[in-house]
């Protein structure tokens, strides 16, 4: 019967359950969530893809100036932030967006475009 008092207390209080899709908690600063990619900053070094423990990053068009974009497979990603840590220019970053549920498998892949700076586009055929 040791719990009787606590039970009565809780019956009077508001339930601690959050009705999730309608009520949300603000994610704490620094939560590791969905990626953003700033195409202009990226130098195409490919370090992020190399350190990723889950092989979740795919460079489109190869490394260096040829690189035309990036695919991030959220289904594989561990949200370890190693890609952000290793990126020399801060082009890839994790945001605090934690709502990643999607209905189709294709939507689990983030596709980012990268427009390489005009000057640095040597086209050697």
């Amino acid at each position, binding site marked *: 019967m040791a*719990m009787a008092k606590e039970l009565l207390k809780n019956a009077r209080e508001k339930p601690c359950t959050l009705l999730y899709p309608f009520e949300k908690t603000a994610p704490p600063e*620094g939560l*590791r969530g969905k990626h953003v990619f700033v195409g202009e900053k990226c130098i195409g070094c490919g370090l992020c893809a190399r*350190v990723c*423990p889950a092989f979740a990053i795919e460079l489109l068009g190869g490394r260096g100036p040829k690189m035309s974009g990036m695919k991030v497979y959220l289904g594989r990603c*561990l949200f370890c932030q190693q890609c952000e840590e290793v990126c020399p220019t801060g082009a890839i970053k994790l945001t605090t967006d934690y709502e990643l549920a999607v209905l189709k498998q294709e939507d689990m892949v983030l596709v980012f475009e990268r427009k390489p700076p005009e000057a640095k586009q040597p086209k050697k055929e």
Partner: protein
Amino acid sequence: MGKREFTIHVGPQHPALKEPENFVFKVDGEYVVDVEPRIGYNHRGIEKAMENRTYIQNLYIVERVCGICSNSHQTCYTQNVEELLGMEIPERAKYIRVLLAELERIHSHLLWLGVAAHEIGFDTLFYYIWRDREVVMDMLEEISGNRVNYAMPTIGGVRRDIAADKIPKYLKMLDVLEERTKFYKNICATEKTVLARADGVGFLSKEDAIRLNAVGPNLRASGVASDIRADSPYLVYDEIPWNVISYDSGDVFANVLVRVDETFESVNICRYCLEHLPDGPIRTIFSPLGKVPEGEAVSLVEAPRGELIHYIQSRGTDKPYRYKIRAPTLGNIPALCEKLRGGYIADIPIVLAGIDPCFSCTDRMVFVDEDRDKRWEMNGEQLRRYGVEWYK
């Protein structure tokens, strides 16, 4: 087998086990006569995966050996690599690692307490404890950016700093945790139905505990005051004042008390760390593509469930040549079988849960040939040759 006995299988799918593992019980009415554990349902090949990844990538693989003691595994791994590199990490990083480890212990022990309450059918207590455990989860989330896999220790230090202006808030959260844990200790000690289910159940004598190599809280509940943090201190555990908790009665109730009291100790260690956090850098640089010199190392960490052993062998490349993990639950299984024998069927879940099992870290691979009724194991070299033969 006598006429009156029959076997029941607990697991691989059973509500009392949160992970797939099989225990074959020989029972006589409501009594357990004998038990045979069968491990291996959840072998994930983590050690092999680690041999194929670089040292930085392995940080996050090793973290996923266990969902609850993820930080212990990572700490153990980084200690190994740092030893091979001959790297000394900054003081501040050490304190932050200890802080993380102790927060993780609080979270793990409260989780266990809730699960134990659920196993004896006390769901109300389970809900309350898990509700209040959210405090420590929030704290971990704020410090590290994730609730479960903190990814804080890295080779050479830790990855995130603790903001000075957040410390008073964290200290307040620790007060809440301490107060609530006191309340739950009181409930466990006074509620008659809990006592009826925990007191004297699943007994393990001191001699048996030592003979069967029990580890962690399970060992300390049998009256052996042994803790890696005290016996071979790592990080800064020798600078921090704290006590090793042990109880003599060796039953489930002693397990409860050991874990609750350790939670108090952990709260105190966290307070000490937050108040005495030294200034300075939080990491020394290790290149993400760096190589590690040749050699081997072993490191020990006191995970929430007991003694955790990692072994590493490097051949001077950017990937470990061999990695070996011995998680605490494996050490506890023989003792667990001893505890289960002679008990009631009704006590199986609570005694099983009493060692706080974590089977997916435990699983080993054994080859079984059913037709010829043979079982064997292979060492690394044999396994390599077997693989070569297989794909030829």
